[in-house]
């Protein structure tokens, strides 16, 4: 019981001290789980994190479930995840209530219109950074090159997403199938 509570508290702390999510939380995880509590080694943490990245769902949540499971089994996985989600639920609910009440002021509306422009700029940058990461590969000398196959998949998915009513889920499933077919055709040379 005490261990489960500690697990909940640890992930509550990680949730409340992480801004941004997924990729920015690794230093927090390392501090809370490896350095402070000695619950897992850094290698196990990096394993959890790698699996968290390549499984469905939010990276932060996946990592929490995985670490919780390693520590205290299935119940541990659930408790750690709930600990991670609690701060989001509390904070966002309060902020949302507060904002709804403020919306009628002109100054707040101007501020929000400004923020919307800012969000567009920031999101453009997110896409740009993501494209740099997901559409390139390293050659043996460590230089980055555009990966033609990735660019083709990206372009095809973009056309489907932007110009057709095909649901997002279906596009992801198609992409997964294409990945497997490419692997079979190229005999793994593309991976």
């Amino acid at each position: 019981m005490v261990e489960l509570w500690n697990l909940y508290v640890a992930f509550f702390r990680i949730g409340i001290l992480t801004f941004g999510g997924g990729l920015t939380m690794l230093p927090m995880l390392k501090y809370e789980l490896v350095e402070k509590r000695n619950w897992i080694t850094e290698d196990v943490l990096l394993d959890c994190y790698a699996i968290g990245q390549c499984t469905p769902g939010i990276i932060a949540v996946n990592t929490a479930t995985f670490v919780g499971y390693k520590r205290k089994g299935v119940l541990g996985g659930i408790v750690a995840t709930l600990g991670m989600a609690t701060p989001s639920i509390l904070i966002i609910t309060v902020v949302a209530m507060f904002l709804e009440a403020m919306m009628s002021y002109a100054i707040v509306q101007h501020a929000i219109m400004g923020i919307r422009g800012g969000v567009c700029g920031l999101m453009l940058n997110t896409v740009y950074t993501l494209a740099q990461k997901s559409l390139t590969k390293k050659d043996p000398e460590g230089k980055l090159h555009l990966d033609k196959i990735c660019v083709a998949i990206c372009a095809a998915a973009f056309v489907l997403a932007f110009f057709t009513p095909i649901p997002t889920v279906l596009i992801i499933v198609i992409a997964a199938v294409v990945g497997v077919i490419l692997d079979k055709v190229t005999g793994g040379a593309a991976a």
Partner: protein
Amino acid sequence: MSQAFLLIFEFFKTGLFAIGGGPATIPFLMDMAKKYPWFTMHELSSMIAISESTPGPIGLNMATYAGFRTLGTFGGIVSTLALVLPSIIVILIIAKFLDGFQENRIVQAVFKGIRPAVTALIAAAVIDMIRVTLFTEEAGKVIPQYKGCILCVVIFALLQWKKLKKLHPAVWFLAAAVVGVVFRF
């Protein structure tokens, strides 16, 4: 009640198919904005700003916010739990049965296909969002909102500067809010 089930269904689906963290949920939220009267595309952009500037993983924050907009506090809790449920199920199965999951060749092949597609999905969603928030349509004509467009381009340009890249998103939103008030957006 049926609204609650729809919320749970949509966020469960998002949790199951949003691969790669916070921004990957945006295409799904965009679908919801188009399909249901829960929140508009305009509100979605404020939701993103708030989710990025408050503690907690962005994906969870957005689920709570979207649920709250739809069904109040109850909606916020339900949506967030629905979002994490697929993670819990999938990760527990993987942790229990699959050793060396990420080294598995099929898994690698699947992600080789999915990663560039996710980039495309997010790009399409962001372009859609820009079209709705920075452009208005009047009598069939598309009119850009110049102030918003300029701010968007300036912030994107500043973000390419290494020293500014590390600034917390909340700093940018605060600056954008001040610009919005000063220049009467």
